[in-house]
């Protein structure tokens, strides 16, 4: 064979398989587009799975505090790739000014209102049965326990203590009415894999990931709660090189995770991505 099957091919093929299963199983399916690097990879994989098309709507939950470059990137890509972009926002909370940047609530509460509740509202409004989310097992302890097809109850709660067995690529696809499903096609990828794939496929990502004045963002979120790290990595290759030697966790720059030891677990159990 003139072609070697690399670990990236294996990851890609597995993700495509999962996306196609989800598309077949759920008539009302959407992708959660965070505009981060993992989302870019997911959009790319959707186009791979569906031969150049993105046949499902992509939901972006706009907290209004996103770093401006992210919104510009989002709108450009939506236009270029013909993405059916759905923007969700918790207008009520924003209008009342009950946010962390306004000093009225904690970071975790703010995340809960502006991201989790906004997502829940748009899912209910559009009546999506399932949402594709680009989380990975290596990101964080609770995500390590996830499944590719992960049910949430009608209150969006996740019962991580009793999860369906997943073997031989047979996923749980039968649910009670009202159950909401999260589909995780990147679950088996690592942060480095994501960058390797971005490099190989030349996938566009927000410039914020690349070093500028000795700083770059490793994980993207809301401006007030996301900090850049010191870095000289200005290309994908340099990022991969940098990640090989890092001892710092990917989400360590996301302040909401750090408020309590289990802050992220609580957010996730109650419906966060």
């Amino acid at each position, binding site marked *: 064979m003139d072609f070697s*099957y690399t670990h990236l091919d294996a990851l890609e093929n597995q993700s495509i398989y999962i996306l*196609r299963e989800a598309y077949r199983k759920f008539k009302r399916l959407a992708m959660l587009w965070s505009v981060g690097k993992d989302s870019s990879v997911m959009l790319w994989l959707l186009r791979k799975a569906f031969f150049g098309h993105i046949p499902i709507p992509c939901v972006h939950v706009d907290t209004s505090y996103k770093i401006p470059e992210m919104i510009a990137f989002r709108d450009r890509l939506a236009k270029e790739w013909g993405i059916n972009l759905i923007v969700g926002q918790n207008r009520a909370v924003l209008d009342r000014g009950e946010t962390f940047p306004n000093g009225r609530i904690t970071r975790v509460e703010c995340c809960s209102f502006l991201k989790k509740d906004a997502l829940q509202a748009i899912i209910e409004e559009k009546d999506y049965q399932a949402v594709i989310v680009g989380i990975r097992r290596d990101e*964080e302890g609770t995500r390590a326990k996830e499944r590719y097809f992960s049910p949430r109850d009608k209150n969006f709660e996740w019962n991580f203590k009793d999860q369906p*067995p997943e073997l031989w690529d047979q996923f749980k696809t039968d649910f009670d009415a009202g159950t909401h499903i999260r589909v995780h096609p990147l679950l088996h990828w690592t942060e480095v894999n994501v960058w390797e794939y971005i490099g190989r496929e030349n996938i566009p990502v927000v410039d914020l990931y690349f070093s500028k004045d000795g700083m770059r963002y490793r994980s993207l979120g809301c401006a007030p709660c996301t900090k850049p790290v010191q870095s000289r990595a200005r290309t994908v290759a340099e990022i991969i090189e940098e990640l090989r030697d890092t001892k710092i*966790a990917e989400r360590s720059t996301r302040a909401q995770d750090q408020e309590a030891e289990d802050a992220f677990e609580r957010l996730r159990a109650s419906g966060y991505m």
Partner: protein
Amino acid sequence: MSTLESQPNSSAHALRIVIVGHVDHGKSTLVGRLLHDTGSLPDGKFEQIQAVCRRRGMPFEWAFLLDALQAERDQNITIDVSQIWFRSATRSYVIIDAPGHKEFLKNMVTGAANADAALLLIAANEGVQEQSKRHAYLLSMLGVSQVIVLINKMDLVDYSKSVYYRIEADYRDFLAKLGIQPLRFVPITARDGVNLIAPPNDVVKWYSGPTLLRALDELTPPAPEAEGPLRFAVQDVYRFDERRIVAGRIESGTIRVGDDIVFSPNNKTSRVASIERWNAPIKDSASAGESIGIILAEQIFVERGHIGSLETQTPIETNRFRARLFWMGTRPLSTGRRYKLKLLTQEIECQLVSVDRVIDATSLDTVSGLRLSVARNEVAEVTIQARSSLVMDNHDKVAASGRFVIVDDQNVAGGGIIFGGTYVNRGRIRSTNIFWSEGTIDHRIRVERNGHRGMVVWLTGLSGSGKSTLARALETNLFNRHMQVYVLDGDNIRHGLNSNLGFSAEDRVENIRRVAEVAKLMADSGLIVITSFISPYRLDRARAREVILSASVEFIEAYVAAPLQVCELRDPKKLYKRARAGEIKNFTGIDDPYEVPENPEITVHTDRESVKESVERLLDFLIPRLQLDVAEYEI
């Protein structure tokens, strides 16, 4: 947050490892020590545990490392550590589902089914134990073929070479029966780090093999089965643009542009016009593991669930098959209940026909006699009937299409692997529904379709001994197992076929001869025939046996025994009464002899057993004989 789960920053594929073994054989200690020795622990964690142990006045305990990682979480939500990463000089590893989980089987199955390799741990001081065997059995079912056996706690047996080799020999024997050939046996003392990372030291002078980490580095990530028979599982058919693309994954083998592909189960054939990918190098073939699309030259009907193969290597197509299965459901797997079966992209309603053996995973023996259900955590050989044809392979031929899961009430509750199926050479099939190109339908083909053998079960015994009752009960039971079964008795033979016969000695001989001939024809056509006649003479029964065997059909003489006094007391048709009164002549037992069978295949005693007990004993005897040959499987 400093967690162990966040350090997999190596570019190559992390090899996924599952660690199994008997309770207290040192799984947690191994993981703790491994993390420390490979430098994979968060800073300060080791010192923290050291301090805790000192405070409690106890020796350092490696297993605490895992406990500590969990215990430090908020008490309201306890998350188990389920992926632990560590690195060798050459690559990274991830340990899936660390030990100590409550829902062990369910999680082990999820973990092991996705693992590239397994570490089987055995404590040298205790040797091979129940779970050492049970876990190995599950690994073999789940298809984890790369196994390294660690014989741990060698310090407790003073690094005895003889103890080590005895355990190795024991376990090697057991694993061989499962078809597992361990890549390595490594003597270790996890607590002291002996033979984990550092090169073999003076402690184990007689051992010259690799350390654990070296043994791990020898493993190869399993490659997709590009060489096997082509199996293309159709996921969907897309028409996003002018193209009609059949999308799916190559589960085995290689597909090439220009190949003629048969899509089972409807057996339509078309040529591959092109292989579709997006933003990928153009290539006119695709191999196992690839999620691709194909465009067909002919417009044939193809849908999700269809399996594409080459005409020369078609899969098995059947609605009835045998499998080895493990059950995780809260409710037992039972006959009479409907389930959903998922095999590749096929989803079909199915039922359990019979539990052929419940397997004791530790001895590989059959656990008990006849069963109608499989309980949680049990492993069994079963026969399954699907509502319509399923496309499959024997697991040892093509793993991906030889395994399935069973969904009970929305939940994946069991998994199984298929064995013993027969491949029919379908020759060249041209878009027709003709299944066999040859016109002759022989006994074997009938048997295959029925899923069981034809057979004659010849019940003999006195009037009133219980033949009819047993015949009907047996018929009902076999029928409910989806078997083709029919009872011949006085009611349906005497009134028609044999209406010209009386009860003279000659007529009785002729009566039995005709019954035997009819039974032979019916059994040859694939049925299970139960005959229910007194058939009192040995010679007649011997002739019947001869007639039946001449058609290569098995003849089971079943003696329904009950003392004359008991039968006379029962006297359901008041025949004994009339015979005693002289109204009936030549009545067996009264004025005509009953010649007790000298060597029946089975005897049931209806005076001492309930009907249920007799039927169960008969079924116990019959079911294995009705099943198709499975000689190729040893366990």
